[in-house]
């Protein structure tokens, strides 16, 4: 997977990391029953950061980003998103969810709605945007992900790569300040991976704050400003991509990298 060809120059003019904190996670712990899935996670994400989280399966990386928009509930520690603390207060949860976009491994588009309706649903019902305006915004983002001509089709009629790009557009329609990606390319054919990664790179070029759980190391090298390696529910190592790939410190990281970069 490492040999992903990023076949163009990355425009870094908007990729600036500010010192404004977007997400602050302090001593967060989570259990599934008695299984300690996340242990003492401390992580500060600044606005404009592009973070790639990697690690072996079962290491808790998906659970970590799912905690950030409360698809999973953490049991100890604090998570602050845009200055709002995630607690059991439903108002805070809905507010954070509408500010944080999320893309899933299996897209999770709504099969009974057209592509356009998928994109306008949340703006209309959550943001109370007028229908016409929501449709214009949706078409704008569908053009951005290069599938405006599919607007009136249903998700089932699209390829996996197209569906994932719709999912990205659907999140963008809510004008999120942070985007979470949970293995967005893991369910895709190789040629579709590229079209989705291109979309994600464009998003990074515009300065979006992104947290990506992915095994696409080429993507990490090209756009990430920080790579986090997790194992057994803990952050084992984090560094800027160059250092991370060329000079890993922990033995566990070395082993992992040798396994995924080796072939």
């Amino acid at each position, binding site marked *: 997977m490492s040999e992903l060809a990023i076949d163009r120059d990355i425009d870094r003019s908007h990729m600036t990391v500010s010192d404004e904190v977007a997400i602050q996670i302090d001593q967060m712990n989570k259990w599934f029953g008695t299984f300690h899935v996340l242990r003492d996670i401390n992580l500060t994400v600044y606005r404009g950061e592009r973070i790639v989280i990697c690690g072996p399966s079962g290491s808790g990386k998906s659970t970590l980003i799912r905690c950030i*928009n*409360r*698809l999973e509930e953490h049991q100890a520690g604090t998570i602050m998103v845009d200055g709002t603390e995630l607690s059991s207060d*439903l108002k805070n949860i*809905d*507010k954070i*969810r*509408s500010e*944080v*976009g*999320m893309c*899933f491994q*299996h*897209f*999770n*588009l*709504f*099969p*009974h*709605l057209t592509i356009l309706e998928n994109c306008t*649903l*949340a703006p209309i*019902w*959550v943001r109370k945007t007028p229908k016409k305006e929501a449709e214009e915004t949706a078409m704008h983002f569908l053009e951005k992900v290069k599938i405006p001509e599919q607007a009136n089709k*249903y*998700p*089932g*009629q699209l390829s996996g790569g197209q569906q994932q790009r719709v999912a990205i557009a*659907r*999140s963008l329609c*809510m004008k999120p300040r942070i985007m979470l990606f949970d293995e967005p390319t893991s369910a895709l054919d190789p040629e579709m991976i590229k079209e989705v990664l291109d979309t994600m790179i464009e998003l990074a070029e515009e300065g979006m704050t992104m947290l990506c759980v992915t095994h696409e190391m080429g993507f990490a090298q090209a756009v990430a400003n920080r790579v986090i390696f997790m194992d057994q529910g803990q952050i084992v190592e984090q560094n800027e991509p160059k250092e991370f790939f060329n000079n890993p410190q922990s033995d566990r990281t070395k082993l992992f990298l040798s396994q995924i970069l080796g072939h």
Partner: protein
Amino acid sequence: MSDTNAQSVSFVRDKMLPESAPPTLERGVVKWIRENLFSSILNSVLTLGSIYVIYWIVAHLYPWLANSVWYASSLNECREIRDATVGPGVPSACFAVITDRWEQLLFGFYPNDAYWRPVMALVAFLAAIAPVLFVSLPRKLLWFSAASPFVMFSLLWGGSIWGPITLAVGFGVGYAAFVLLGRVAGALVSVLGSIIAPVLFWMFLAGPIAGALTAVAPIGLPFVESRSFGGFTLSVIIGVSGIVLSMPLGILLALGRQSDLFIINKVSVAFIEVIRGVPLIVWLFTAQLILGYFLPPGTTFDLTLRVIIMVTLFSSAYIAEVVRGGLAALPKGQYEGADSLGLDYWQSMRLIILPQALKISIPGIVNTFIGLFKDTTLVVFIGLFDPIGLSNAIRASTDWNGIYWELFVFIGLLFFIFCYSMGRYSLFLERKLQRENR
């Protein structure tokens, strides 16, 4: 080594073959018969056996139907006519009982001069469900659908029109309370207010207002007592009310059963299991006998209404389980997708989850409704005159003593028309939704 190819492997076609028809055995009727009727010895035997059974049934049924007598005033007259025309002992249906008593089978003891009222109510009902069933009709018609229960009530029972109107106004009061409280207080307060306000309105204001208005402007059709209702009219009233009311209740119960809230969950489970675990006939006897004890003394609570409530509760438990199946069939990702966009619980249910879950549940829902509709015939046991009850009454009369097949064929046919239409609609809806989203 020698050349092992006996023939040359190279080949060039110099003449293209014209298209030709398949052999006789492989086309048209012959092919169809061979493939579908006589494809093997066992299948041939089954085919011939089935043909014989069908012949046997038709051979017995046909003379009975073909020699049927349609106009007579009693069974004895029927037999006389038969003896005179086709001869004694020949099987002959006496459909004269239908031509003689069809009005009673359809309308029960409803006043003769007011038969137009149930008919108009049926027309109103068909007009009301049309926009619900067929999305292609203009959406504005749904306003009539919302008003139709009150229109149908006024037509069927009659009495002052102000009663149903104040009843309808109560719903408006509830909605107003929901909107107004929603502005100043939270969601929970506005939901509670939208329930309490109309109940208070109905308890303390609706009666006096309707009374005052009736005194000023006594508009309305003559009142018809529930006792006069009967026949197919009664079956349709109970069946349709049960179907329409049990759908939303069933959905709420299914959501309750899925809920993480402990009390709501357990109440839903208990309700579903208790209602489902006891035969409908027991609930109907309960409605007839026991429900009266729980009501304040002096209140007369219409038996038809009690039956409707019981039938509704009964089928809502079944609907809840069918819908729960649909909910469980949805991938978890759909819930997460809706959550991640910031939709609240009711929004994600209404816009994302239920449309898909109900689509999956259509065959089961329609199946339950068909069952409910046919189960309305059980009301005969608590003394209501549904078509079965009336057939007993007709057979008890001296004129028609001894007749039964003809009545049951007619009643069965009426039920079949309704149930078959429901089944066909379910298929239509499934195909339509299948086409729209794969």
